[in-house]
């Protein structure tokens, strides 16, 4: 079933808010040294949106009784910073050719993506209640055919970076200025397809491509380093010819900086150090919350903690 559009106020709200965040972020960058705690206007706005997104993720998974809550909470700040602080997209015109492309390669975190897209105004947030319900457009993994704002169907890990590389290559062929962003899980990097694409992107000098790695150090069943170790991850990306930036993946200002364009002519890998289950104390850094579903009581606690 087709998703309902949002009301006009939401789209206008998105435009106004992203403009405000970008303006503040610009000011922040110029005066960062003078601001001891970097508790700035932009960061506060982004934090507020991220809290909203996290709360709706918890409610969606509670309602569906399924989902990947740990990874959703881990990737939320990255999603929100991309959509509100960095990318050029038009929720009212999702296929606008000049848009920046966004690919959530770790597609199991669809709840966080849907919630972010709805918040931006790609569709009516009331639709989030249908997450994974029979015939809903909001499948357990994102479907571009049904959800505006989704660029390619993901869910099988290891597909996003090759597709994003293709997007960036097309932009280069057309001398277009739009950028491509792809968010990868760290466990996902065990798939060889990523490294095939990493080589190709560097080979073609795809400076408009930014890959963000949600480095929460957990995968489905264990820690990445106990399963098939990834470290030293920055060295790996560097040796594949990428410009590497390592940041705290929950620090919105640091993310804003890290997501700025390439300064070297090479594709950029942002290694975002994150905490799986971020924001809910009993889920943080615990492997079982990869896809465990909280009880009613745990939902209450989670929402209370996320209220701030």
């Amino acid at each position, binding site marked *: 079933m087709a998703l309902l559009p949002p009301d006009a106020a939401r789209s206008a709200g998105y435009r106004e808010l992203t403009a405000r965040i970008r303006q503040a972020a610009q000011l922040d960058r110029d005066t960062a040294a003078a601001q001891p705690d970097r508790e700035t206007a932009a960061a506060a706005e982004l934090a507020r949106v991220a809290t909203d997104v996290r709360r709706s993720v918890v409610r969606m998974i509670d309602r569906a009784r399924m989902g990947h809550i740990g990874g959703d909470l881990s990737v939320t700040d990255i999603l929100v910073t991309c959509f509100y602080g960095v990318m050029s997209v038009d929720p009212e015109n999702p296929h606008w050719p000049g848009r920046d492309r966004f690919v959530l390669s770790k597609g199991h975190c669809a709840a966080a993506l849907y919630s972010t897209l709805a918040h931006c105004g790609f569709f009516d947030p009331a639709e989030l209640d249908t997450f994974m319900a029979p015939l809903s457009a909001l499948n357990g993994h994102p479907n571009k055919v049904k959800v505006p704002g989704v660029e390619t169907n993901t869910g099988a890990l290891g597909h996003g970076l090759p597709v994003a590389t293709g997007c960036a290559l097309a932009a280069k062929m057309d001398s277009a200025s739009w950028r491509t962003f792809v968010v990868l899980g760290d466990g996902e990097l*065990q*798939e060889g397809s990523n490294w095939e694409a990493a080589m190709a992107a560097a080979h073609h000098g795809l400076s408009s491509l930014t890959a963000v790695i949600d480095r929460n150090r957990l995968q489905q069943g264990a820690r990445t380093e106990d399963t098939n170790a990834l470290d030293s991850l920055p060295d790996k990306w560097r040796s594949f010819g990428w410009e590497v930036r390592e940041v705290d993946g929950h620090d919105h200002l640091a993310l804003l900086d890290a997501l700025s364009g390439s300064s070297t002519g090479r594709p950029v890998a942002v290694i975002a150090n994150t905490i799986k289950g971020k924001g809910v104390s009993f889920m943080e850094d615990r492997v079982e919350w990869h896809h465990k579903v909280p009880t009613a009581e745990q939902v209450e606690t989670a929402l209370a903690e996320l209220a701030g």
Partner: protein
Amino acid sequence: MTVTDQRATFDCRQAFAEELISLASQDERIVAVCNDSVGSSNLVGFRERFPDRLINVGIAEQDLVGVAAGLANAGKIPYVCAAAPFLTGRALEQIKADVAYSEAHVVLCGQSPGMAYGELGPTHHSIEDLSWLRAVANLDVIVPSDPVQTRAAVRWAAAARRPVYLRVPRFKVPEVTPPDAPFAPRQAVLLREGNDVTVIAIGSLTSRALEAADRLRDEGVSVRVLNTPFLDPIDEDAVIAAARETRGIVTAEEATTSGGLGAAVAATVVTHQPCPMRILGVPRVFAPTGDTAFLLDHFRLSADGIIAAVKDVLGHG
């Protein structure tokens, strides 16, 4: 409430894991190889018993199957345990070249096949596996219908000394296999005698075929129900006999209709004994959102759907 609803049903991953542990305790060549799938393949117990014989390659299915072929080369008997869609989709060429073509004794265990991952969508559905793998030479394809057949398949594969793919059902199914049923290549299991129409069913559709046959008997229609746990090589003699002795054949499977059971049966009857047929499965569309039970009904992979197909055959037969 339907007949099947009243019976106990089983997630076959438990029978799978118990049988694998029991085999491994008798034969130290047996190892399990997985892709960050210890939990989803129910291998926690195996890991506790044989920590050194569980190899987790991480999220890397091509590597998974290649590594298994290497282990087999050195005399081990690897049971590769991975979600069926990624095992068969991502590693298809490794299955073809490293396992089947190279005649490696690797047991490929496709976990949660069909639409067991319902709401997680088409990336997680494994409905193409039977078509893909039937196209690969030198690979036996086994589709257990219940815990009894799952255990038999795990045991049979250990001694097969050849490449095997078996589905490990997760969607809960009742027991359907009679105590004296055969389990071997080219051996169908006769579940109901009948002489009007034959229904041949595998996997989750077997219990639904039985329910359809029971309901049709009350209407005076005599349905033969055959089950072919070995999809490849299939029991051609039983298929030909059904084509000769009944007025037509309905096949039913939780897989795309393009190349699985329906295609195998159709190729057999067209060559030896043409008869009317209806092929029930997932038509060539990507499933909408929904849980497994919802999707099976959505695609008419139910007793009602089988009954309608049987009547259709009789109408045209």
